[in-house]
């Protein structure tokens, strides 16, 4: 079973519906943001990114929204599929010499068939 400790927030969505995963970041100097998807037993995989000079970016079935005023990032997944079930992490980076990537807590998305 799972270890005792911090458990990831979870989101369950019916297959075919849209999902929205949210992330709050803390550093107002962050300049670049990335969403990663992590399936069980694998390393995180890149989904989509956005620079701080943008507030929206679209990919295939995914959209990232950035609200710098409230330091909020969201990932929208359209027409969800069973393969979308995974843990989703947001990451932020400061683009002036120190590009350390800082990750959020993560959200576990489960697609219900």
């Amino acid at each position: 079973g799972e270890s005792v400790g911090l458990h990831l927030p979870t989101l369950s969505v019916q297959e075919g519906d849209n999902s929205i995963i949210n992330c709050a970041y803390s550093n107002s100097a962050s300049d670049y943001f990335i969403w990663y998807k992590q399936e069980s037993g694998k390393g995180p995989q890149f989904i989509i990114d956005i620079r701080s000079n943008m507030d929206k970016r679209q990919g295939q079935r995914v959209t990232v929204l950035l609200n710098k005023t409230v330091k909020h990032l969201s990932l929208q997944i359209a027409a969800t599929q069973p393969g979308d079930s995974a843990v989703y992490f947001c990451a932020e980076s400061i683009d002036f010499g120190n590009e350390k990537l800082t990750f959020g807590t993560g959200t576990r998305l489960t697609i219900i068939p």
Partner: protein
Amino acid sequence: GAGVSQSPSNKVTEKGKDVELRCDPISGHTALYWYRQSLGQGLEFLIYFQGNSAPDKSGLPSDRFSAERTGGSVSTLTIQRTQQEDSAVYLCASRTDRDRNTEAFFGQGTRLTVV
């Protein structure tokens, strides 16, 4: 190879032993990161290498942890006198600096179990 390679994929060690974890980044990537992920939790930053600059070691949890990167390529994370709380998946990632705003690519991780 085309991606980030980590070895071993699994490591079981006895408490008190030293372990070395290896990361082969993507060729040409100048930035290399180590993260730790405990079961069901997020990614905890450990250390970051960028080219010839001094590494950012601010995430290393104790002086039992160290890392080096030889020749700007392969990196080794060493944990001395392992403790049970060191059990986790250790993830390595690399990133290019040709364009500063780029994603990091992750390896599959090394699952470390201290018994």
